[in-house]
């Protein structure tokens, strides 16, 4: 019996060493010199997850010999995953996705990790908040909507994806900017429920990512009045931006591929260069456009700036 135990312990030790080594080839150059883990702090199949996996597959094709391994860590509302990423070894082999919640949570007391713990590679999606209303609504432009809202203070039901979540914050921002009051109705399961509620006329408006509502808008059952972005959406070229109409608001639900702070600059540059090529390529754009998502190509420092800007904006808005 004792011999057997010893034999087993030896096998165990061997397997233990082997099993965690993974496939490492120390000869090749970065990024081909080992698996790159990408922590996705959301459940598989969701919007962030599919976009992340899409980006990773394109990057893998661009960077020959590299292997990106997506790992879903949806615990703790995604915060656990982001915290783990911030604590990971900054050797370029652990990357992760962070979402706009990174800029919001610290100011809501939900998390302590901020954008300052990360350096970004790129942000493939940055969905702007769009004002979407029902077809029968008596307003067809942003100004008409604001006028109606002022006359019917507190009556327009504005759907969002949860109190304290991004679209609710967008609506609160809207209230502050235009001096109006809505009735906020949360739909915690997400934008698909908001779309169903609008289609069934249970609520009157929403400020949310327009991609989920695309089929309804195209079919004419919903109207999109304005978009909170810097440039017009490619899907709705006739729809003005808030900026054009005199209100430079930009609330976006972005997701960015980042690395922990301290990752060596050479490795980061390799990733950023590849990301630049990928995000500007036709296949990448087609992949997202076909799903109704407006892809963005915010790379490197521009992405860092976006994260910092949003963090400052939410700090100001939420700390009141």
């Amino acid at each position: 019996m004792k011999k057997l135990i010893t034999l087993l312990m030896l096998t165990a030790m061997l397997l233990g060493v082997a099993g965690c080594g993974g496939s490492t080839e120390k000869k090749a150059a970065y990024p081909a010199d080992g698996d790159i883990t990408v922590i996705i702090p959301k459940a598989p199949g969701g919007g962030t997850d599919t976009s992340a996996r899409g980006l990773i597959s394109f990057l893998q094709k661009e960077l020959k010999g590299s292997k990106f391994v997506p790992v879903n860590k949806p615990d703790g509302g995604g915060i656990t995953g982001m915290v783990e990423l911030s604590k990971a070894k900054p050797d370029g082999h652990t990357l992760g996705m962070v979402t706009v919640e990174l800029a919001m949570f610290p100011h809501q007391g939900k998390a302590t990790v901020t954008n300052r713990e990360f350096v970004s590679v790129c942000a493939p999606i940055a969905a702007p908040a769009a004002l979407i209303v029902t077809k029968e609504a008596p307003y067809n432009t942003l100004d008409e909507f604001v006028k109606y809202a002022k006359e019917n203070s507190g009556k327009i039901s504005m759907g969002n994806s949860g109190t304290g979540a991004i679209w609710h914050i967008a609506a609160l921002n809207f209230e502050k900017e235009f001096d109006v009051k809505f009735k906020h109705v949360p739909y915690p399961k997400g934008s698909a429920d908001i779309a169903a509620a609008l289609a069934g006329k249970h609520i009157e408006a929403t400020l949310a990512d327009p991609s989920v509502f695309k089929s309804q808008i195209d079919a004419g059952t919903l109207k999109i009045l304005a978009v909170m972005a810097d440039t017009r959406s490619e899907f709705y070229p006739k729809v003005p931006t808030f900026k054009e109409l005199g209100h430079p608001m930009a609330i976006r639900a972005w997701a960015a591929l980042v690395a922990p702070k301290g990752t060596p600059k050479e490795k980061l540059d390799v990733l950023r260069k590849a990301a630049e090529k990928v995000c500007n390529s036709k296949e990448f754009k087609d992949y997202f456009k076909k799903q109704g998502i407006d892809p963005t190509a915010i790379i490197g420092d521009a992405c860092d700036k976006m994260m910092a800007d949003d963090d400052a904006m939410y700090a100001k808005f939420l700390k009141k």
Partner: protein
Amino acid sequence: MVSMKLCNFVVFLMGVVIGGAIMGASAGFPMEITEQGPGPGFWPFLLGLALTVAALVLAVYTLCHRKELTVEKVILGTAANRQVYVMMALLVLFCGLIHLIGFYAAAVVLIPCIMHRLECRDKKLMLFTAVGVTLFIYLVFGQLLHTSLPSSVFLE
């Protein structure tokens, strides 16, 4: 062997305690029903209350049926149960072992231990099962599905 009556009373006590704790914790949140709907403490408070009431109903029920319930036994102390407790301890130890030597190594150690406790004495079978199953997990979950099972803390 404990009687069901006694167990029910334990459950009643725990129900009251937990229900009370829930009510207390919910009271820390706003509870009134305003135009923005009920506050976040409203629903959990109702649940705590319902739990306490249910526990009380259970106590009453147990008192009414105390004859049958004294006869009905809950089997917790026999030799068979003790084996289960040993197994539970093994599983808890396994969690710790995963941290020490990594998942695959710990699995190879765990399987023969469990089989030994289940009165298997065939050493070849134990080795074969341990290595076979671990290999299967490595191939399917490790390689195919890219699930990186935890590795030893010392190798991090």
